[in-house]
């Protein structure tokens, strides 16, 4: 008999999602899908609110990477208050925001790698789920668990010092920042008691990379073949092609490394990127307009960034990037599990960036806010831990937000995650009459590689266009309803 398998909830990811897998009489997977079952609605209820509230309000759609939303909204508001896009802020404003952002990337990646993903690597995909979790890691690999916790703490402390609070702060305001670092704060990060200082963080980041590389050597098949497929890749890059997670131009490359989006100013993103809605998930499907809905999808996130940037502007991470690129002979890397490798390179890069920023006296300056000629529309983009994050707002003459459009990283990765689920479902489930927990965990491992933050990926309320089709056994549509 054909059967439908549901994995609900998907565990060790942020937010709620579900996977359905349809299998036919011969135990072959015929369809598999990742559904996002949470519903947020921020794009709707921000309407009418004053624009300066957006960075503080919108970040509430997530408790894990609120800083990314806080900063993306603030960047959009920089445009609105006439402070330009990216390069118009005062040096203190810009550097404090960058420090906040790299602190966030550092802590979020650490959380993801050590807490959520490492159990699968350390114990194996088929291990007993009672051990295959962070508690198991703490018991059997104490050093790694402690490092994970302390690295996360360091990043959180940076966020607190720049945003005012570890979660949901208020530091970034339109046109700048509301505080700079005191000398004591700065010194505590540079020379704090072991292990909470930046040099230790860099040392541990290198250690985590070595751990992964060793693991990779011993488990090549898993790391290289698991959910591996070619794709296009998209991210912001600095104007000179360097990695820049806070600001840049938008670039996409195809699976051969050819540029298909040519370093555009992201204020024009809507001319290049479209969004499609499907009837089985609350999450939208973005695509590159020039290529079309069918083939215009792309990957975002650490893996994509390794593929789009020409180099990383910090020495230790650059060395690792060279190794990473050499592994695929300079061609884009499409191996989903290499996302972990890429993430660890970014942890190292973030630590190096934090050190550079902390050693810059501008971080203690007093010139916090810049304002110029007001405009009614602004777009703010940055590279969040999970990938490119888009915030787009339009306001009316009374300063109220009229329109908001958010494309979050997880949404950008919608198709790649579904493809990863399908590839793993087929590989692990095809031909098996009895489905084990380990097989299903393999599907989750594929999703986890993308570190999706499902909670923030769905946010249109009221105007959610929903299309429902009733289909008979020969796939003829017999009824169709559309609401929107």
């Amino acid at each position: 008999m054909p059967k439908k398998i549901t994995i609900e909830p998907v565990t060790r990811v942020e937010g709620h999602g579900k996977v359905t897998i349809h299998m036919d009489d011969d135990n072959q997977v015929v369809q598999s899908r990742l559904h996002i079952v949470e519903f947020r609605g921020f794009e709707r209820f921000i309407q009418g609110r004053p624009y300066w509230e957006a960075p503080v309000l919108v970040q509430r759609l997530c408790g894990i990477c609120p800083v990314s939303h806080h900063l993306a909204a603030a960047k959009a508001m920089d445009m609105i208050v006439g402070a330009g896009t990216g390069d118009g802020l005062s040096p203190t404003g810009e550097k404090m925001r960058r420090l906040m952002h790299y602190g966030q990337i550092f802590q979020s990646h650490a959380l993801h790698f050590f807490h959520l993903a490492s159990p699968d690597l350390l114990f194996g995909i088929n291990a007993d789920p009672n051990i295959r979790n962070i508690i198991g890691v703490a018991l059997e690999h104490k050093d790694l668990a402690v490092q994970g916790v302390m690295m996360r703490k360091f990043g959180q402390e940076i966020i607190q010092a720049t945003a005012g609070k570890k979660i949901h702060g208020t530091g970034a305001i339109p046109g700048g920042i509301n505080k700079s670092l005191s000398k004591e704060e700065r010194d505590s990060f540079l020379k704090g008691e072991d292990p909470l200082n930046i040099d230790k963080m860099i040392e541990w980041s290198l250690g985590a990379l070595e751990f992964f590389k060793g693991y990779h050597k011993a488990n090549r098949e898993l790391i290289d073949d698991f959910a591996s497929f070619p794709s296009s890749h998209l991210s912001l890059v600095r104007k000179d092609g360097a990695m820049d997670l806070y600001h840049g131009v938008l670039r996409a490359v195809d699976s051969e490394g050819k540029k298909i989006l040519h370093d555009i100013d992201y204020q024009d993103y809507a001319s290049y990127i479209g969004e499609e809605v499907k009837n089985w998930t609350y999450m939208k499907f973005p695509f590159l307009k020039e290529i079309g809905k069918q083939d215009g999808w792309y990957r975002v996130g650490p893996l994509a960034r390794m593929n789009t940037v020409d180099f990383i502007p910090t020495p230790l991470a650059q060395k690792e990037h060279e190794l990473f690129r050499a592994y695929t002979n300079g061609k884009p890397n499409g191996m989903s599990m290499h996302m972990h490798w890429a993430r660890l390179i970014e942890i190292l890069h973030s630590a190096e960036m934090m050190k550079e920023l902390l050693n810059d006296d501008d971080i203690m300056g007093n010139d916090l806010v810049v304002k110029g000629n007001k405009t009614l529309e602004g777009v703010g983009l940055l590279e969040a831990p999970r990938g490119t994050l888009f915030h787009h707002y339009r306001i009316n003459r009374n300063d109220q937000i009229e329109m908001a459009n958010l494309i979050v990283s997880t949404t950008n990765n919608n198709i790649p995650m579904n493809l990863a689920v399908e590839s793993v479902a087929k590989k692990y489930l095809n031909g098996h009459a009895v489905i084990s927990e380990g097989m299903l965990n393999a599907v989750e491992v594929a999703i986890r590689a993308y570190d999706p933050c499902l909670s923030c990926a769905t946010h249109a309320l009221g105007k959610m266009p929903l299309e429902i089709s009733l289909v008979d056994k020969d796939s003829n549509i017999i009824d169709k309803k559309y609401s929107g």
Partner: protein
Amino acid sequence: MEKKIAHFTIDNKECTATTGVSIINAARENGIFIPTLCHYEGVKPAGSCRVCTVKVNKRHLTACTTPVAEGMEIEVDTAELNDLRSSVIELLFTEGNHYCPACEKSGNCELQALAYRFGIMAPRFPYQFNERDVDASHPKIYHDHNRCILCKRCIRIIKDEKDLPAGSQGRSIFAFNQRAKKVKIKLDDRLGKELSDELAQKAMDICPVGSILVKETGFKTPIGQRKFDKEAISLDNSINLKAMKEAHHE
């Protein structure tokens, strides 16, 4: 005329104050804090929020409108009265739409500060989810009716004093509009147009909640430096102490 001194007790403590001053002020003179949301030193008390309710000789009275008199036995800090105050604050939270997480007045808001002082975790009454709107049409002020607790401070304090003889009251720039459940604060069409930056800022400062906001200045004060970030609301940091000092200075 010589001022008469009244002798009275607050929670059994012997106190003295000038006869005729409000109980709220008499208490302050004796180092005792009576919380309030509507009272503002120097303007006529309205008795509208009821948070300052005390017991005088076993009767419930508002401390802002009742003058102190010889021999009064006043109860302030009792379990019964604190529960009553708490319930009034909880009612305000359920009647309006107060979302502290994204409110720029958070940390400077007296309603929020009192909720913390009374340890309110969740209101005992059901939320009303009343539909309120915002008025953003004024060039300087963003007025969020979701948060207004109708304390009338803005009406009583923010006055236009231009072209008026010295000593006269001034004209209110804010006023009540409509009635009963629909009542809301509105800026006077003509006077509102001439609102100075100073008065706009003062209106924001005296509003106990985040209902009156000066446009484009939100979240300027970092977390940690806001009024109630370090200390709970008390006699030492209450708005009325500040108002009293300012009045004294003048």
